[in-house]
C-alpha cells in the first residue's frame, strides 16, 4: 500500500494508460488489415508535425477547453450538466446575432460583443434547467439532455426559416462581415516573432480559452463563490448549515457552466466558420464531459486533456484523409484513451505501486 511518488502518479500512470490505449487500437488497425505504425506516424505528423498541424489541433482543443471547463464547474457543484451541446448551440446563435445585427467597426469590439452574447445565450439556456432543478426538483441530467434536443430543433428552425439568406441551399446564416473575423493565432504569434502557420482555424479564441481556464481556477479556489460551489458540491446539507443557499448556487453554477459552453461558439462560429452552421458544435459538448472527467475537474488538467483530445481529433482526421483506415478508428482510440486514463488508472497504479515498493526495498 505504499503511495507512488507524485511524479509517477501525475506523469507515469497517464502515460502508461495512453500507451495501452494506443497499443490496443494498433491491434485493431492491424486486425482490419492496415499498418498501425504507419497510422501512428500519419497521426502524429498530421497533428503535431508542423505549426499548420498544431493549428488544427489547437483549434479543436479550444472548443474542448470551453466545454470541458463548463462541465467541470457544474461538476464541482455536483451538478451533471450534459447540456453543453445545446448551450454551445445557443451560444452560436448569440454570436451570429451579435455579428450579423450589429455593425461592429473592429474585431476587438465584435469579440467583446460575441463573448457577451455567447455567454449570455449559453447561460440563459442552462438557467432554465437550473431553475427547474432548484425550484421544481426536476433532475438536471434529464432537463439538460432534453434542452439539447430542443436546441437542435430551435437551431434547425431559426436557420432554415430565419437566418438563411434567400435562395441559399445551405441551412446556414449569411457570412459575417469581414470586420468581425478574429485574427488567426499565426498572425498573433507572428507579431511577437514566432513563426506559426495561419492557414488553419486556430485563432485568438485559444487565448480566451486559456484565460477562462485561469479564471475558473481562480474562481474555484480563490473566491467565495468558488468556495461555496465546492462546498455545496460536497455536501448540500453542510452547505445549508453554513448559510449557503442551494438555489442560488445551483443557478450560479449552471449559469457559469452554460456561459462557458456558449463561449465555445466564439471559436467555432466567429473564429472558424464565419457564419452559423446547423451543427457548429459537432459533439464538442459531449467530448467536454470526457475532457472534464479526464482533467479531474481541474482547469489545468482540462487544458491538457483538451490538447490530447485535439490531437486525437486532428490526428484522426489526418488518418481518414491519408489512409483507407475508416475514420471511426479514431472514435475507438478516443474511447480507449478515455477508458484507460479516465476509468482504469487504478489498474496501472496497483502494479506500479508494487514495483516501486520492490525497488525501495532492494535499494
Amino acid at each position: 500500500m505504499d503511495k507512488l511518488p507524485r511524479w509517477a502518479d501525475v506523469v507515469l500512470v497517464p502515460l502508461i494508460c495512453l500507451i495501452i490505449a494506443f497499443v490496443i487500437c494498433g491491434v485493431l488497425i492491424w486486425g482490419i488489415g492496415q499498418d498501425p505504425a504507419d497510422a501512428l506516424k500519419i497521426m502524429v505528423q498530421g497533428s503535431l508535425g508542423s505549426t499548420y498541424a498544431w493549428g488544427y489541433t489547437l483549434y479543436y482543443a479550444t472548443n474542448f477547453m470551453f466545454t470541458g471547463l463548463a462541465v467541470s464547474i457544474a461538476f464541482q457543484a455536483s451538478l451533471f450538466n450534459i447540456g453543453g451541446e445545446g448551450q454551445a448551440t445557443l451560444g452560436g446563435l448569440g454570436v451570429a446575432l451579435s455579428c450579423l445585427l450589429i455593425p461592429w467597426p473592429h474585431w476587438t469590439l465584435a469579440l467583446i460583443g460575441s463573448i457577451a452574447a455567447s455567454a449570455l445565450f449559453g447561460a440563459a439556456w442552462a438557467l432554465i434547467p437550473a431553475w427547474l432543478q432548484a425550484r421544481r426538483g426536476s433532475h438536471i441530467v434529464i432537463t439538460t439532455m432534453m434542452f439539447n434536443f430542443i436546441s437542435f430543433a430551435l437551431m434547425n428552425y431559426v436557420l432554415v426559416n430565419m437566418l438563411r439568406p434567400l435562395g441559399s441551399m445551405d441551412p446556414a446564416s449569411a457570412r459575417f462581415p469581414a470586420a468581425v473575423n478574429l485574427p488567426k493565432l499565426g498572425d498573433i504569434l507572428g507579431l511577437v516573432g514566432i513563426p506559426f502557420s495561419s492557414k488553419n482555424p486556430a485563432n485568438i479564441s485559444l487565448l480566451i480559452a486559456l484565460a477562462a481556464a485561469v479564471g475558473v481556477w481562480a474562481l474555484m479556489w480563490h473566491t467565495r463563490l468558488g468556495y461555496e460551489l465546492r462546498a455545496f458540491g460536497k455536501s448540500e446539507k453542510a452547505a445549508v448549515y453554513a448559510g449557503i443557499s442551494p438555489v442560488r448556487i445551483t443557478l450560479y453554477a449552471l449559469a457559469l457552466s452554460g456561459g462557458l459552453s456558449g463561449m465555445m461558439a466564439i471559436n467555432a462560429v466567429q473564429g472558424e466558420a464565419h457564419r452559423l452552421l446547423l451543427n457548429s458544435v459537432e459533439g464538442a459538448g459531449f467530448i467536454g464531459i470526457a475532457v472534464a472527467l479526464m482533467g479531474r475537474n481541474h482547469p489545468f488538467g482540462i487544458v491538457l486533456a483538451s490538447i490530447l483530445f485535439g490531437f486525437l481529433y486532428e490526428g484522426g482526421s489526418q488518418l481518414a484523409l491519408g489512409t483507407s483506415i475508416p475514420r471511426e478508428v479514431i472514435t475507438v482510440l478516443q474511447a480507449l484513451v478515455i477508458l484507460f486514463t479516465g476509468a482504469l488508472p487504478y489498474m496501472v497504479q496497483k502494479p506500479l505501486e508494487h514495483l516501486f515498493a520492490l525497488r525501495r526495498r532492494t535499494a
Partner: protein
Amino acid sequence: YDVGGKNDKSFNEAAFHGAERWAKETGGTYKELEMQNEAQREQALRQLAESGANPIVMTGFAFGDVLNTVAPDYPKTKFAIIDMVVDQPNVKSVVFTEEQGSYLAGVMAGMASKTGVVGFIGGMDIPLIRRFGCGYAQGVKSVNPNDTVLLNMTGTDGSAWNNPVKGAEIAKSQQSQKADVIYAAAGGTGVGVLQAAADMGILSIGVDSNQNYLHPGQVLTSMVKRVDNAVYEAFKEGADMKPGVAVMDLAAGGVDVAMDENNAKLVTPEMQKAVEDAAAKIKSGELKVHDYMSDNTCPAGQF
C-alpha cells in the same frame, strides 16, 4: 464526400461509383476523402490542392462556403462542386433539378396510389429536402389534384439521417393514414422506410441512387440523381474543365426515375406513358416544375 459517409446507399455512394467508372475506363487514379467535421472541409480541400490533384470534385452544398475562400488561392486547380453554385473562375458548379425528378416520381406515385394518399419522408427540414418534397407533391397533384400528400421529416439533429427505426415508424404512421406509396429522401433513414413499406405491402420510392433492388417488386421506382455521371464527367474533363454552372436537369440526364427489372411489374404502360409525357413536357419547357428554392414556397404542399 459530405458528412454522412461514402456508403450511404444514395448520394455519396453515387459519387463514388462515378469516380470508379472513370478510374476503370481510363486507368487513372484518384484520391478520396471523407469529411468528419466542418472545420476539416477547408483543410481537406487545401491538402488536395497542394498535393497537385486536379480537378477536385466535392459533393454536397456544405462545401460551398469553404470553396469560395479556397478556390481563389489555387487558381490553377479546377474545382467541381455538386449541389451548389459557387461563382469562381476556376469552379464548375453542378446542380441538379431534384424537383423535376421528384415530379416524375410524384406522377408515378399518384397513379400507383389506390387510396389517394401518398407519403413523403424527408430527413431534416432543410431547403434541399423541401425541394424534393415540393416537386413530388406537384407531380402527385398533376395526376389527381385531390390526392393528399403527407409530408413528414425525421428529425432535427444528425441522427435524422441515420434513424431507420424512426423512418419505419413514420412510414407506418403514414400507412395508417392510408398512404400506399411513400417517397423517402432521408439518407440512411430511408432504408428503414423502404423496409417498412415492403413489410406492410405498400410501395415506396427510393432516392439518389437506384434503390429498386433493395426490395424487388416493392419499390415503385427511385428518383435517381446522376451524381455518378457528374463526377465521371468532371474527372473526364480533367484539368480542362469548363468553369461555370452546369444544370443537370431532366434534359441533361441529371435526374430521372429508375426503371429496371425490379420494378417492371409495378409500372403499368399508362404510368410509363404518363411519365414519358411529363418528362417530355418538362424537357421542352412546356411544363415548369416549381422550384421551392426559387421563392421558398410550395404551391402543392405545406412544410
